[in-house]
């Protein structure tokens, strides 16, 4: 059982070291001659003006949420479609109920005006 966790551990170590090793290597190898220009945030382009907190239009969030509904739908429908032969009528009914619930969500969203772009 623990062997499985070992794999996780190896992955973890690999994942961390993959970006870390080049950076460390670079740190030791690179020449260090900082100038004010080099240490500024962006070496080229214009000076940044204004707040970093950009406000997005709230509709984007609603769209993102609506997207999630369909995303989930696909995720769950795909295995059902693959195993359609095996799960048979039972699966069909279950999937229909699932779709109906999503449909209810969609109806709600539509009625609440979340699909309109104001």
């Amino acid at each position, binding site marked *: *059982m623990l062997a499985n966790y070992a794999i996780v551990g190896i992955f973890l170590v690999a994942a961390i070291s993959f970006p870390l090793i080049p950076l460390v290597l670079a740190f030791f190898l690179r020449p260090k001659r900082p100038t004010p220009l080099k240490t500024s945030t962006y070496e080229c382009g214009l000076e940044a003006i204004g707040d970093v907190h950009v406000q997005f239009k709230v509709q984007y969030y609603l769209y993102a949420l609506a997207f999630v509904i369909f995303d989930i739908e696909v995720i769950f429908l795909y295995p059902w479609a693959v*195993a359609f032969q*095996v799960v048979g009528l039972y699966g069909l009914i279950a999937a229909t109920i699932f779709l109906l619930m999503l449909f*209810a969500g969609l109806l*709600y969203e539509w*009625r*609440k005006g979340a699909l309109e772009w104001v």
Partner: protein
Amino acid sequence: MDALTIPPVDLGLIAPLLVVVTWATGLLLVDTFFIPVGRKKLTGYLAIAGLVVAGLVGLPLWGVSGSTFGGMVRLDPFALTLTWVFLLIGILSITMSLDYLPRQDIEQGEYYPLIMFAVSGMILLAQGADLIVLFLGIETLSITLYILTGFAYPRLTSEEAAMKYLVLGAFAAGFFVYGIALIFGATGSTRLSEIGAYAADRDLGDTNLTLLLGGAAMVLIAFSFKAALAPFHMWIPDVYQGSPTPVAAFMSVGTKGGALAALVRLLFEALPTLNAYWLPVLAGLTALTMVVGNLGAIAQMDVKRMLAYSSIGHAGYVMLGVMVAGEQRGPEAFIFYILVYALSNLGAFAVLIALEHQGEEAWQLDDFAGLYQRQPLLAVAMAIFMFSLAGVPPTAGFMAKFYALTAAWEGGLPWLALVGVLTSAIAAFFYLRVIIRMFMTEPEGEPAPELNRGLTIDIVVAAAGTIIIGLIPAPIFALVERSAVALGG
């Protein structure tokens, strides 16, 4: 591809849950399509009807014991009785919201279905026999509560409370999931009974034991967070104070009931053989909870915040029954305490609502000054709730506390019973302060708003229940006794 075997599904066993969920989903649509703004009370009535129907559907299931969905969901008298208690909590909470929402200008039709969804999460927690299902239940409950907490969103405190609750709740949920993963890693199952069999039968290797214990510890932490055990209780005062009062009321009993019901199953179906490990931890947390909750309440001048601290303290007393649920008296004490606490605490919150003016956020002790002169009914009811919460006979609160203490004492935790007795002695002090303001000071400030029907019903039901259960608890004890029998198998 191998033929998939689909486990037989007996929908009858989850009938109340099914009713609540479908009804809530339908109600959400009915509300948006057919119920005009300004008449949203109708949605509330329909929600109450749904909860009542769910309760009635459960009636023929009394005495049934069985599991379905491949053993992931379980129905037994323990779960069924708790289901009824949760439905009652939902009904009372909705009743007290009916007039509160328009008065505070936050009336939205979604409120009522959300409460129903939260109730369904609680029922799932009582019925769950699998870690995944328990997680599902806890998230259903929590996510709806995040929304409900922020329901008064024009009010900054409400938004703030929702945000805090969300961040910390997600933190705790992370522990839950990680705990499940570790337990699964150690035992190869998420089914409570299978984990229990694994932990009991096999001579666990060091590694597996460590994994199992680590996982168990994390799951326990997640439950402790939901049930507000110290030191995982920090969110409670802020969240209660910020959220709409009926939501705070619902939360104070709902999360405790749901989370601890699941904890009972987890401890005694999955981990009974490991009780040498979790019992000292939980006992320590319980003792700390009782001390912190009751001492913290002393310093509060805001009654809503005081009730928040008191709810922390009461989580400790509920835990007394939970920890000894291996014995017959444990689950009895647990269910009885939850029911009694629900009545008294919901009643106390209902009185707060009755005193609340539009847009007001604080309930200072002084707002209660001379209430007996202004509104005797409210004052007497509040006194009953306070005495019940303080555990003074002949109220139900005394019976519940005494029973929980007996359970703990007999279950081998006499020192914890001692802590419970001492802290409840301290607790009298701050409940009494409210009573003093009501009966022993002259009224000041403007009179409270008119009492309306829904609230009156709520308060009267809760007060009458508190007194009647205190004087004639035998029928409730009989119910509770039979509910507890099936547990631990």
